[in-house]
Structure formats: structure tokens, C-alpha cells
């Protein structure tokens, strides 16, 4: 049996899904998360029913890409659980009535039930059930209230198949239904209303956004540095270093295997940034230097998502983003990019036109450094002084804007207008924030660690074979002439294709000046995406557009690096 979970965007569908199936899924408080649908299983008596989390849709007459998918999937379902936001009955019932026209049995989950009390909304569920002709069960996805009842009543799902001649007739029926089942009582102005009013106000909203983003940045840095300074680094030095030193002695403090596994000893000690062995740098960078920042970033992102702030940011950024050939929606993939460019490029799918997707993906690859890269930039460039970190970020931001302005003129087409629902502010459901954080951190470890280790291995072997000297000599004119960098940096720059965090790590032993560090990290951030992003770019944009995007990246990186060399 195939059960479809359908409803408007942002009604807590994904949370309900994770409650029903017990699987961990990513659920967010903004539309467009589940353009790619998620599948899970629910034990129903003897049977193992398949549950599909259908992308959020307002109507079965598709008006966007996500809704197309929803309407298509509708045809294959044996039963529909229609998730309805109880605090917004009228608009949600539009989809419900459309579902009830179809020959598929339906059950209604009246979700966010707890919120109706805060908002002074009273709904007579018995009456609603009677009027709709299908079971109606109040649920609270976040706490799990009503889930068991929902499952118990699935067999009662009914197929009224009442049809309406026109949309007007349907709305008339909805108006009638709502007036019969819902009564509103007075409620007080809450902290939410105050915040919502503030963030809607044009000037207040901008100030609020700056405050939010600045606070986010400082909290991320605070958590990241805190974990490194008090947890991962001490733990590593206490447990891992003595073991490695023993191994080093056992291997005779040098030789082929020593170089591969432990790397070079600096003054007889292991230096985790410079030794460059599989078991030293290869493990230290992802787990000690980068992981804390990944945790900090995704923790804050999860909160911003589930509070419902991102759609407001989209509205605020819409005017600016239109100048760059995008619209407000594009802020969502862009912000994801600060974590990792791979899901960011995938999320450009929520944008309507091919043109927007190309511009957004290119800008993300150029101007948005991922958390792993940022952790290393802050760690390494930050040693020279925070102002140098600011120069790197400033250069990236300026390139993001300027290249956007150029692409907006150069790429044919126009950017469509924004239309986005603004959900009310909600307290983030901690269970969901926690699950999402775990899921994202786990996938970082699973995907990044093997690539990091592979990269370190490849670097060591190429180094031993002398390949790097060869490349360095070829690239020397460009590097020293244009960018003012020593020719050895070419090694790090080319390794950036595999892993950018490792690449920054490779700059550490080169004893670069602050200016050279700024130039090399900026170029590294811009010049091309890492191999994982590369693959996703090709998949999302097609090989031709991916090559175009790459050409833009290389040109932009050389120009910006060259300018920095002239100006700084």
C-alpha cells in the first residue's frame, strides 16, 4: 500500500512524516525543502505500508515545479493523509476539497493543534468531520500528540468524491464550512507579534536582519572556537598524540611509511597543520579543526530555518537579488552554501527558471565559502590578524555582487517576481533541530573524511614522485607574476579541487606573508569548486553550463587575486 502525505508547504508535514515512519528526515520551516520526495515505511497490522512525503502544494492544479511533482504523485497513491494547518483552516481546506474530489480515500490530520489555543482559534472537529465526510484527527507533529489516533483511524479513510464546478464554488463551500466549525476568541499581543511586526517593517527589518546575521556569525565562531579550544584539540593532544609518537618511533622516525602515515616531524614533534601524514593532518583537519565549525553552523542554520526567519530574509533581500538576476528565494540556497556548496547547488532547484539556477549556482561556487574552508581561513589567516580575514570575506562578497550584476546583464531572460508565504514565528522544535543537526554532521563525517584521507594520500604520493615540482615550475609565471605568490602555492591551489580545507592546510608550512595568505585563500575560494560540488554542478546545470560556470570562476579568481596583489 502507498500512503501519500500531502498538504500546503510549511504545515509540519515533514515532522509528521518522521513521527509516522521513525526515520530521520530533514524538515524545515520554509517551502521547497522536499522538491525531491522522501520515502519511509509504517507498519500497519501485518502490512508494511510505504509512506511518501509529497512536496508541499497549495493546489492540485499545478502552478510551479514542486506542485507538478505533487500532482503527478497523487495519481499513484492508495490513500492520502492530508496535513492541514489548524491555525490556517480556510486556505488549507482549498487543497483538502480538491483532494476530496479525487477517487482516493483521504484522512485529514489537523496539525499544529496546540498552536490554535495560543491564537484564540476554536475548531469543532466533530462538525468538520461531518461536513467533509472524512476522519479529522487533531495532531501535534512536534510532540507526537494524535499520531497513534491518526494511524488507528487510517482504515476509516473515505472517498466522498464531491466535485465543484469552479474555484469560486469551492471557495464558497470553504467559507461556509469555516464559519460553521471555527470560532475566534480574543487573544493578546504576544512577543511573536512584536517580532513579526518589527521584521516586516522595511527599515526595522533590515536592522533586525543585520543583528540576526551578526549574532549568528558570532555564535558560530564562539561555539566553533569553544569546541576546538576546550574539547577536540585538548582531547586529541591528550589521547592521540602520544600514540602517534610511539608509532613514529616504531617506524624509525622517518622513511616511506612514516612519511605517508605520520608525515614530517617538525623539530622532532608532530605539527598537525604541517606534518601532513594520513594519521596526523589527515585526521586532525576534518575532525578537530573543521567539525566543530560544521556543528556550530548547522546548529544555527537549523534554528533559523525552524523559527521561520528565512522567508523574511528572502523578502528583505529580494530587491538586492533582483539586481543580480535572482529573486529573494535565492537567499535559501545561498545560505546553505555557507555550510557546504553541494546541498546549496542542489537547492537551486527551488528556483523557477534555468537562468536563475545558472546564476545562483555560479555565484554560490564563486562567492560563498563552505564551513570547512571558512574554519581553515579563520584558523590560519586569523593568526595574522582579524583584519586579513575581513579582507578575504570582503573580496568574496564584492565578487559575488559584481559578478551577479554582470551575469544579470549577460545572460538572456529576466528574473520572475517573488511570491512566498511568510510563516508565523515558531519556537524551534528541539527534537527536529537536534535530528537535523545530527543528520547533517553525520553526512559531513561520512562524505568528507574518506575524501580528506584520500587527498592526503594522493598529495604524499605525488610529492614523493616529484610531480609537484614539475607543476610548480610550469605555473610559476602566472603565480609569481600575476598573483605575487611563491610557485609552491600551486600545489595547494590544485589540491583545492579535491578538498579546500586540506588545501588551506597546505599553505601553512610555506611561511607566506599576510598579504600572500589573503591572496592565496581568496583565489582558492573562488577558482573552482571542490570535486563534489563539481559533480553536482554538472548534474544540475548540464556539462556545458558547468564548463561555462567554471570558466567564469577561473577568470574571476585570477582578476580578483591580481587586483589584491596590486592594491594590498
Amino acid at each position: 500500500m502507498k500512503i501519500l502525505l500531502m498538504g500546503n508547504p510549511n504545515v509540519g508535514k515533514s515532522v509528521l512524516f518522521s513521527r509516522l515512519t521513525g526515520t530521520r528526515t530533514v524538515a524545515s520551516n520554509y517551502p521547497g525543502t522536499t522538491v525531491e520526495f522522501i520515502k519511509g515505511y509504517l507498519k500497519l497490522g501485518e502490512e508494511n505500508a510505504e509512506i511518501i512525503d509529497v512536496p508541499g502544494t497549495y493546489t492540485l492544479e499545478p502552478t510551479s515545479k514542486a506542485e507538478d511533482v505533487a500532482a503527478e504523485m497523487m495519481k499513484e497513491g492508495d490513500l492520502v493523509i492530508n496535513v492541514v494547518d489548524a491555525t490556517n483552516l480556510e486556505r488549507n481546506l482549498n487543497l483538502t476539497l480538491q483532494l476530496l474530489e479525487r477517487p482516493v480515500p483521504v484522512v485529514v490530520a489537523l496539525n499544529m493543534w496546540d498552536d490554535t489555543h495560543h491564537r484564540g482559534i476554536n475548531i469543532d472537529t466533530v462538525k468538520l468531520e461531518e461536513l467533509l465526510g472524512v476522519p479529522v484527527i487533531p495532531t501535534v507533529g512536534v510532540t507526537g500528540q494524535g499520531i497513534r489516533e491518526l494511524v488507528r483511524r487510517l482504515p476509516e479513510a473515505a472517498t466522498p468524491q464531491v466535485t465543484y464546478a469552479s474555484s469560486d464554488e469551492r471557495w464558497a463551500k470553504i467559507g461556509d464550512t469555516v464559519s460553521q466549525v471555527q470560532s475566534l476568541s480574543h487573544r493578546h499581543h504576544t512577543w511573536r507579534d512584536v517580532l513579526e511586526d518589527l521584521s516586516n517593517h522595511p527599515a526595522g527589518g533590515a536592522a533586525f536582519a543585520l543583528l540576526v546575521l551578526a549574532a549568528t556569525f558570532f555564535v558560530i565562531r564562539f561555539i566553533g572556537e569553544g569546541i576546538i579550544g576546550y574539547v577536540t584539540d585538548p582531547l586529541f593532544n591528550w589521547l592521540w598524540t602520544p600514540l602517534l609518537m610511539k608509532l613514529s618511533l616504531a617506524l624509525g622516525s622517518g622513511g616511506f611509511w612514516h612519511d605517508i602515515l605520520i608525515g614530517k616531524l617538525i623539530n622532532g614533534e608532530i605539527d598537525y597543520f604541517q606534518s601532513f601524514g594520513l594519521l596526523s593532518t589527515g585526521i586532525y583537519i576534518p575532525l578537530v579543526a573543521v567539525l566543530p565549525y560544521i556543528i556550530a553552523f548547522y546548529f544555527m542554520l537549523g534554528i533559523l530555518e525552524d523559527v521561520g526567519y528565512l522567508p523574511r530574509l528572502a523578502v528583505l533581500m529580494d530587491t538586492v537579488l533582483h539586481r543580480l538576476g535572482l529573486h529573494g528565494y535565492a537567499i535559501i540556497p545561498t545560505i546553505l552554501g555557507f555550510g557546504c556548496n553541494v546541498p546549496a547547488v542542489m537547492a537551486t532547484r527551488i528556483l523557477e527558471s534555468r537562468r536563475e539556477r545558472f546564476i545562483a549556482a555560479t555565484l554560490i561556487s564563486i562567492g560563498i565559502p563552505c564551513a570547512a574552508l571558512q574554519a581553515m581561513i579563520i584558523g590560519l589567516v586569523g593568526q595574522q590578524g582579524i583584519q586579513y580575514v575581513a579582507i578575504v570575506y570582503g573580496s568574496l562578497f564584492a565578487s559575488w555582487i559584481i559578478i551577479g550584476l554582470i551575469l544579470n546583464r549577460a545572460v538572456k531572460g529576466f528574473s520572475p517576481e517573488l511570491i512566498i508565504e511568510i510563516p508565523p514565528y515558531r519556537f524551534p522544535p528541539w527534537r527536529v533541530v537536534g535530528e537535523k543537526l545530527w543528520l547533517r554532521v553525520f553526512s559531513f563525517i561520512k562524505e568528507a573524511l574518506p575524501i580528506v584521507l584520500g587527498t592526503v594520500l594522493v598529495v604524499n604520493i605525488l610529492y614523493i614522485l616529484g610531480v609537484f615540482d614539475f607543476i610548480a615550475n610550469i605555473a610559476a609565471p602566472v603565480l609569481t607574476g600575476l598573483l605575487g605568490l611563491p610557485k609552491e602555492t600551486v600545489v595547494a591551489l590544485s589540491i583545492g579541487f579535491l578538498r579546500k580545507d586540506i588545501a588551506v592546510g597546505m599553505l601553512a608550512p610555506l611561511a607566506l606573508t599576510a598579504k600572500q595568505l589573503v591572496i592565496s585563500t581568496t583565489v582558492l575560494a573562488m577558482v573552482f569548486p571542490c570535486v563534489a560540488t563539481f559533480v553536482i554542478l554538472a548534474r544540475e546545470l548540464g556539462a556545458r553550463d558547468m564548463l561555462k560556470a567554471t570558466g567564469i570562476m577561473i577568470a574571476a579568481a585570477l582578476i580578483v587575486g591580481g587586483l589584491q596583489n596590486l592594491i594590498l
Partner: protein
Amino acid sequence: MSQKIQLALGQMEAGQTGTIIQVLGGRGLIRRLDALGIRPGKKVTKISSALFRGPVTLRTNQTQVAIGFGMANKILVEIDIST
């Protein structure tokens, strides 16, 4: 005395409430707005508009929606002005 005037949603003042008379625009736009509950006969409150012809935020029922400035000017609204 009260007087009824018609104007585009984009021209309303923040905080004003009116009734939607008509959505001028193609079928696609009408359908998209209709699905969100923005359709003739509905009461709509303009909450705010961003600077530089940015998006307009409005409320119908309990839903807040932000739409582009161009779209907002295709929605014709009648408002009561008491004099």
C-alpha cells in the same frame, strides 16, 4: 461619511485594509494567487512594502504572503475612507 475608492494593492498605505475587486493578469497569476487564498471578495491588509519597489507583504485571513511589486499592482482593491 464614508467613501469607497479603488486602487492597486501596491499603492495602499501599510496598515490599510480593503477588499479585493479584481486580479488583473494572466490565468497563471490568477491561479497562483487564488491557491494562496488571494482572490476577489477577500479582505486584505497591506502589512508593509520594502523600499525601492521591493516586495509587498500582505495578509488575508491568517496567512502572510509577500509578492513582487509588479504583482501587487495587478491586484485591484477597494478601500473605505471615512471622511
